[in-house]
């Protein structure tokens, strides 16, 4: 995913002289091609995220679209007030890029587990979250962000994520990306970020095959809450999926969006349990410990169907 990001950013930077990349002394072997090709639009800011974000705001105020790149919680929590005040309040085109969203740095421990980032970033109006599900969505997110420069948060996985989409896709604010769906289906998994793979795996299992679909929502944020309602209303039942804690996450966001509307869509949410905090291990292991894997998704889908068979099963 990080390779897809940097390759697309380089492609965009060739055509767009406003793109500037700051890195927080991280990105070994990843950011080098950008630094070599655009030395005048690249700075390694050292291990200093607050200054990095303030400098990004200053550069953005002079017309640059600044990408600030670091890993896990460093470019978000460490400099949250700079993102809130310097970037979001002034509506500067700064894209905070975090590599290792979720539990991608699983065995590096709690400091590197980015499982609370949606909660804090999504309340920072007018920030838009871009959380791609695979390398194809990553490239599409970068394209969209460059075409729509604004305060934004690009949450990436790390490396080796499976390619889900077989063709290039383009994104539109407030619209989901279809992976597999159909009018006669019981419902869909609605994913954001790299949890997409688990939903795709789940619908290939015999229990759900042909009955549950998958759509992905890489672009979202507080200001898109109303815009996504139309998408939500198209489905009879939705199970949201995210590699983030329940508190304040994507599922919470969808619940808030649906609350006080007349939309009949039923919603269940799958997110990570706080029980995994403090554990280390491979990403798959930790996600599974937190309640996120294909079997768990099957279980939730079946329990969902059992609740109201007449309504959900054709």
């Amino acid at each position, binding site marked *: 995913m990080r390779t897809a990001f940097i390759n697309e950013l380089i492609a965009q930077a060739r055509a767009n002289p406003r793109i500037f990349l700051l890195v927080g002394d991280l990105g070994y072997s990843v950011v080098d091609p950008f630094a070599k090709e655009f030395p005048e639009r690249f700075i390694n800011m050292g291990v200093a995220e*607050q*200054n990095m974000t303030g400098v990004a*705001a*200053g550069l*953005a*105020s*002079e017309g640059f679209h600044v990408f600030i790149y670091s890993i896990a919680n460093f470019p978000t929590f460490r400099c949250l*007030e700079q993102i809130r*005040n310097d970037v979001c309040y*002034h509506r500067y085109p700064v894209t905070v890029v975090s590599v290792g969203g979720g539990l991608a740095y699983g065995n590096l421990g709690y400091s590197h587990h980015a499982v609370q980032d949606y909660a804090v970033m999504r309340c920072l109006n007018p920030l838009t979250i871009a959380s791609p599900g695979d390398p194809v969505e990553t490239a599409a997110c970068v394209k969209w962000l460059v075409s729509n420069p604004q305060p934004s948060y690009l949450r990436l996985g790390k490396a080796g994520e499976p390619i889900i989409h077989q063709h290039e896709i383009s994104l539109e604010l407030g619209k989901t990306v279809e992976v597999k769906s159909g009018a006669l289906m019981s419902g869909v998994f609605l994913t954001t970020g790299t949890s997409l793979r688990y939903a795709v795996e789940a619908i290939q299992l015999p229990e759900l095959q042909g009955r549950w679909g998958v759509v992905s929502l890489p672009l979202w944020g507080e200001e898109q809450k109303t815009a996504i309602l139309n998408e939500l209303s198209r489905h009879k039942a939705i199970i949201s999926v995210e590699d983030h804690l329940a508190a304040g996450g994507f599922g919470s966001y969808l619940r808030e969006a649906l609350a006080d509307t007349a939309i009949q869509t039923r919603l269940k949410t799958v997110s990570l349990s706080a029980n995994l905090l403090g554990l280390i291990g491979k990403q798959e292991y930790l996600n599974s410990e937190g309640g996120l894997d294909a079997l768990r998704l099957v279980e939730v889908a079946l329990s969902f169907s059992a609740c109201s068979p007449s309504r959900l099963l054709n």
Partner: protein
Amino acid sequence: MAEKSEQLASQIRREALKMVALASASHIGGSLSVADIMAVLYQDILKVRSKEPQWVNRDRFILSKGHCCSALYATLALQGFLSLKELETYGKDRSRLMAHVSHAVPGVEFSTGSLGHGLPYACGKAVAAKRKGASWRAFTILSDGELDEGSNWEAILFAPQHKLDNLVAIVDYNKIQSLGSVVSIMDLDPLAEKFRAFRWSVKEVDGHNHSSLKDALATLPWVPGKPSCLIAHTVKGKGVPFMENELLWHYKSPEKQQLDIALGGLNETSL
């Protein structure tokens, strides 16, 4: 006859006092300590156009000690960026003159209020000018208490690394921070040596002496390739004897009688 900048400083003090009194606002002490610096900057140093606040070649000015916005708004009004009448709306419902620096006000580059944000932002501006080959400069005024913030020291490391000699940091060193004296809370001394050790070029002046301020700021950059730090030794509450060096005036707003005494005293000294 006082110099123009001295007259302006006196007017800034008068307008700032009236603003905080009318709004029952805080922070007059720091506005009075920075008034002379603001006056010299806007009268003699900064290349700005009041009728064209977004003029592309303007010098960029950032007041990082955002709580002292009454001095900035007064300066901008006196220089024609907004009307003097508008100053009466300071801190009122829906006013754009919020009680910490707001970028909704013409001539203001950047909203501040939380400390430790102005210098990193000014560094970003200075980098932008360098990368674009532009000749304008970035100025920022910091408070002394603000230098407790780690973000400033990140920026103080950064600026010399990138040879930002188009960056000027002015410290309004009035020696009093929010709950007491700087010496008793988080002593900054030796401040000049600290900046020098971080590879800045540094000068120290009496921050109320207009000739000294002008002499220092007229010859920027002092060392090519280095950012400049002007440590301006000031007095909190300067110009109003009963407010000078009194922590109380970080918080309190003058009552009618106190305002009259303060304004009366300023009339005598400025004419």
